[in-house]
């Protein structure tokens, strides 16, 4: 689905592609820094201690979430400045791309990168020989991973929109809501392999975020109804 999003909405306009790649880049940098922190923490601690390792991992995840949001904010700042430049450059005095579009693209960029990083090794290994879950682990590993990744990508997109909107209108509570949601989703994955604990809340949160973002972007139930009725 993420690829479909990309193809239909972003690939047309070169500017959006650039914003997308830059968004992915920012996510990557945040990941880099967070793994650096984690790495240092691991090296400084006892490698034999299982629970401690897991605890450190959890700490790493939380930290990474915070860093990701921080980088989203930085990216927002950069894009704000860029918009001013674009407006100055364009012929008719208005920006060729609105801040909402940028928010959307940035969100997709983040999402794609995080999804790619989560899934790609899994996919590559899936091509090879072997059976899933042969050691007593869940057999649904691949399936749940796929769903989780998809929900994360969508979530990143919506968070992007919400976050930028919050920054635009200076509503701090929106921003904190996004951060809290992100933390909650990551935290829910800690219940894995108890999948019901992680997938279901994530999907619920995603639905909520989708509705919120949709309403922010100017949609309404009326639009939705008209769209659905037209189609069918």
């Amino acid at each position, binding site marked *: 689905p993420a690829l479909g999003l990309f193809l239909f909405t972003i690939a047309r*306009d*070169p*500017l959006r*592609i*650039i*914003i997308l*790649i*830059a968004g*992915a*880049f920012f996510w*990557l940098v945040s*990941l*880099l820094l*967070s*793994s*650096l922190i*984690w*790495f240092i923490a*691991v090296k400084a601690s006892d490698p034999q201690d299982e629970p401690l*390792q*897991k605890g450190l*991992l*959890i700490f*790493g*995840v939380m930290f*990474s*979430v915070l860093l*990701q949001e921080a980088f989203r904010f930085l990216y927002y700042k950069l894009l704000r*400045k*860029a*918009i*001013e*430049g*674009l407006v*100055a*450059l*364009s*012929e008719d005095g208005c920006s*060729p791309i609105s801040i909402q579009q940028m928010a959307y693209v940035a969100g997709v960029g983040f999402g794609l*990168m*995080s999804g*790619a*990083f*989560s899934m*790609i*090794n*899994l996919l*590559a290994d899936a091509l090879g020989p072997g059976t899933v879950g042969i050691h007593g682990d869940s057999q649904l*590993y691949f399936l*749940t*991973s796929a769903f*989780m*990744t998809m929900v*994360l990508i969508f979530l990143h997109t919506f968070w992007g929109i919400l976050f930028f909107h919050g920054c635009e209108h200076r509503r701090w509570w929106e921003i904190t809501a996004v951060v809290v949601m992100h933390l909650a*989703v*990551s935290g829910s*994955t*800690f219940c*894995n*392999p108890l999948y019901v604990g992680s997938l279901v809340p994530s999907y619920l949160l995603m639905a909520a975020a989708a509705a919120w973002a949709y309403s922010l972007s100017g949609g309404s139930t009326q639009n939705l109804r008209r769209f659905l009725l037209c189609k069918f």
Partner: protein
Amino acid sequence: MTELSAHLPQFQHGQLTENFPDNHLSNTNDNSERRRHDNSERRRNDNPESETNGQPHNNTQQVVEQDEEEDEELTLKYGAKHVIMLFVPVTLCMVVVVATIKSVSFYTRKDGQLIYTPFTEETETVGQRALNSILNAAIMISVIIVMTILLVVLYKYRCYKVIHGWLIISSLLLLFFFSFIYLGEVFKTYNVAMDYITVALMIWNFGVVGMICIHWKGPLRLQQAYLIMISALMALVFIKYLPEWTAWLILAVISVYDLVAVLCPKGPLRMLVETAQERNETLFPALIYSSTMIWLVNMAEEDPEAQRKASKNSTYDKQAPANQTQNEDAEADDGGFSQEWQQQRDNRIGPIESTPESRAAVQALPSHSQTSEDPEERGVKLGLGDFIFYSVLVGKASATASGDWNTTLACFVAILIGLCLTLLLLAIFKKALPALPISITFGLVFYFATDNLVQPFMDQLAFHQFYI
């Protein structure tokens, strides 16, 4: 040395030609190379002001100043398009290289080394290995420097025949010999039975069409495709025959060298570009990838819009047929340079030829037509060497990284961002710029960081199925 050459004298020269329409028409676009890479400008804020302010200051000729500014804006507007026009081929090249590395094992087997890297890396101690790789890198770099200087000297003294011949032989080698090996290895991997006659026919067709496309006329897309293919082939050769540490060291040193060679007043590449500009010639077509089609035989630049504005282009082009042929010679020479050099080498060794030349020019081609409404005509040129080294970096990342696809992806994004930044700088500075340093630096940083830091983290996360 990938120069985003928006070489200042050239720019001014272009300015001059602006004022004198006749000259401008008769001169080929070479001179009209005004680098406008605005795409980055679009993305980054502050530039626009400096850009437009810079315009008048660059424009010594006030007559077309207003046109200039209009062009500027138009160019800026289409700047994003140009960046994408460069993204796509770079991405394609990298994809081809990564796909080959992943599937054909030939390119990851160690079958020996080039004679340019005589020191082996299978030594006992780490220190010795480091020393060997440093020596290898030093030898390779000096070889490249010598080649580049030789090329510049030949060009300066107008030994076009020599360069031309060199280029022809070099591309012959690449197109026939290396694609033959590549095809053979692909067939081996997929266990496809093939007889020699069919292979001979295929290779012959491929090679001849390639030679025609690159050195003479041909459809733009086809020429771009061929340039991408030969860059990928070269990159594969490099990946195969360079040992690990040497490869990374070489990448690092090449970017430093690129920086130096292009920006220092006495740098060979800079002199090359300047000479080319003085003589109103285009740089070597076989070594440069252009993104806009200025109908020039040699300056194949991809620009579909340019084709739409065919009328302008064609009039523009027709007026400079002479230049074109001359340019062609000059450009062909560039390619030949390295090839000749390679001739003297062992046949097994891959042609490094394109490197210096390819890196010779990343030029934003503001093949600005006499009218001021052809933003599409302006394109960017990227040296083939840049393609090759980007692909070498990504290919090595995919071949030898423990993080595998993660690392590959990270390096890919890093390189693209580096390219964006370089184009941004090109738009700001309007001179020939080296395209290697920023991208390679980002790529190297991300490679090592991802491989060592991110990979264990992601592994642990995937193991527990945590998501960040």
